[in-house]
């Protein structure tokens, strides 16, 4: 099957600053992809490139085998919920459904109306008067009802309260499962993605630090705890991401294709959040780019 997103040497420069550098990435279809990184890491830039809102400075990007925003067919295949979930403040919920119906040949009106009913949105209400959560739901409805193959969401829940976040993610996951959508969703909070994402991309300092299926990532990253010693004393198969030392004990967070078999070391798993934080931390310490795991 065609990759959802296939980027080769992708980069985007604003003036002198590179918002995204040398991004090479292949996301297989059928995943809920979490794109995580601190604010300003380049998440929105990557998403804007994938939706054709930006054109790359270097490299290429293909989405579902086509150039982003290249013609109505390509646009129809990708649903996009932009940052701050924009809607037309002066148009009613009903008008938004008509907007979707008029501008998308594949529009599923039944689906849209059912969702609006379930969300208990008043069709006559102006979108400008909706709460942040309701507006996000309306934007999501528009993106889903055009029946895309891929749904891209840029920090959709950043401005929502915890309850609205939970509801939004739940509805998103139901829709993704029901319509067999691939989903790419960015957030600066791992916790938002942890419950839903099965594929993770960590973007720090305009570079992709690591990308891969969550299970594989968790299986290849470990916490090693043992007697105090240098990082260089570990076998070459163990790539140290972070380390901390006390007088008697050293703790390393490592990536390794094989698990360390040494009675001196106790080997533990780590949470997705620990893993992401480790990459964010190590990216700050060094500028070396780690190749992604595929």
């Amino acid at each position, binding site marked *: 099957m065609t990759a959802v997103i296939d980027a080769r040497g992708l980069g985007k420069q604003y003036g002198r600053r590179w918002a995204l550098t040398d991004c090479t990435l292949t996301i297989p279809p059928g995943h809920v992809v979490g794109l995580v990184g601190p604010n300003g890491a380049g998440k929105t830039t990557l998403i804007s490139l994938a939706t054709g809102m930006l054109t790359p400075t270097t490299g290429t990007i293909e989405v579902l085998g086509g150039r982003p*925003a290249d013609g109505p067919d390509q646009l129809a295949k990708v649903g996009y919920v932009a*940052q701050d979930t924009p809607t037309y403040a002066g*148009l009613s919920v009903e008008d938004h459904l008509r907007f979707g119906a008029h501008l998308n040949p594949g529009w599923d009106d039944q689906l849209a109306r059912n969702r609006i009913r379930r969300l208990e949105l008043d069709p006559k209400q102006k979108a400008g008067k909706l709460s942040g959560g309701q507006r996000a739901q309306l934007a999501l409805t528009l993106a889903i009802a055009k029946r895309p193959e891929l749904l891209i969401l840029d920090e959709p829940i950043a401005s929502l309260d915890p309850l609205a976040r939970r509801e939004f993610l739940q509805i998103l996951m139901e829709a993704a499962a029901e319509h067999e959508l691939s989903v790419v969703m960015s957030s600066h909070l791992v916790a938002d993605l942890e419950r839903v994402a099965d594929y993770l991309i960590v973007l720090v300092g305009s570079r992709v630090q690591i990308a891969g299926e969550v299970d594989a990532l968790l299986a290849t990253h470990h916490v090693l705890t043992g007697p105090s010693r240098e990082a260089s004393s570990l076998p070459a198969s163990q790539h140290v991401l972070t380390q901390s030392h006390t007088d008697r004990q050293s703790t390393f967070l490592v990536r390794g294709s094989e698990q360390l078999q040494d009675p001196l070391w106790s080997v533990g798993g780590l949470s997705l959040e620990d893993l992401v934080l480790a990459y964010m931390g190590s990216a700050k310490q060094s500028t070396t780019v780690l190749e992604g795991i595929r």
Partner: protein
Amino acid sequence: MIWLSWRQFRVQAIVGAAIAGVLAIVLVPTGAHLASRYAAAGLTTCHATCGSLAANFVNSVKFSGDGIIFYAGIALLYLAPAFIGMFWGAPLVSREIESGTLRLAWNQSVTRGRWIVVKLAVVGLAAAALTGALSLLVTWWASPVDTALNLGSGGNSLFSFNRMDPLVFAARGVVPLGSAAFALALGVAIGVLVRRTLPAMAITLVLFAAVQVLVPSVVRPHLLPPATATAPINIGTAGIDIQSDGSGPGVITVMGSISVPGAWILSEHAVRPDGQPFSATAPRACLGSNFQPCNTWLASLHLRERAIYQPASQFWPLQWLELGIYLILAAGLGWLSVWQVRRRRA
């Protein structure tokens, strides 16, 4: 896409239609009344005395309520295109950029090229329809005055706002339609380039006003070759001026008068019989307190007043030419907007 263009434009369109409706309510009865005054003044049946009848009629209009409407109609047809550029054109794309809805609009199954083209077409047609209707109303309303002025009441006297006059010309016929299309395309293009609504509105207004000044002063006089007319100068009634910088004898100039009904006088001056412009250092005869020797000398020169002008018959050719220029500019700006929207980031 047409649905969306109309839905987003509905309020502005209704405001424009309402303004046009109110104006029709004012202009239709007063215009009918004005036409009846024109007939009552005998201008529809006159033969030899048309000139003076027309002068009486124009003066009676000038100092009545209809005079205010006459000038208000001109102001309206300058303001309408400016407002269309500011309130219909400038926000068309910039407001969507500011509110972030561009990212919503550009991610439906419609390319952004089609999005901008349809929007431009819908609002452009509305702008043409509105200013077309306004210009038709005002041109019809003012036609008795315009016709009377062409019958020769004005000449180059003080109130000679005939329809060839630079001030009136752009508020008659098809030119308002062209300037509205231009203002709209200008507003949209500025909005696309500046990306912010308020600055875009301000810049649109300034640029449009500049063009409204430049077209009559720089462009229009050269669109068609002007005509020339000369008339003998009656020294007894001509204006005579002697200007001296204090050191030597002054320079004498003569200002005669010439009447070309309904024309737009581009330039006018006294010429010698051989066609050379007249200017001379004032002879001693002209420096005394008695003007008679000076007048005798001037009369012996057989000076003539020469006017270079656009005749009344050039009105429609000039109208169509100027409409064409505005439409070409509008098309160019429209193309610029489409090109920018297709390549620019959201």
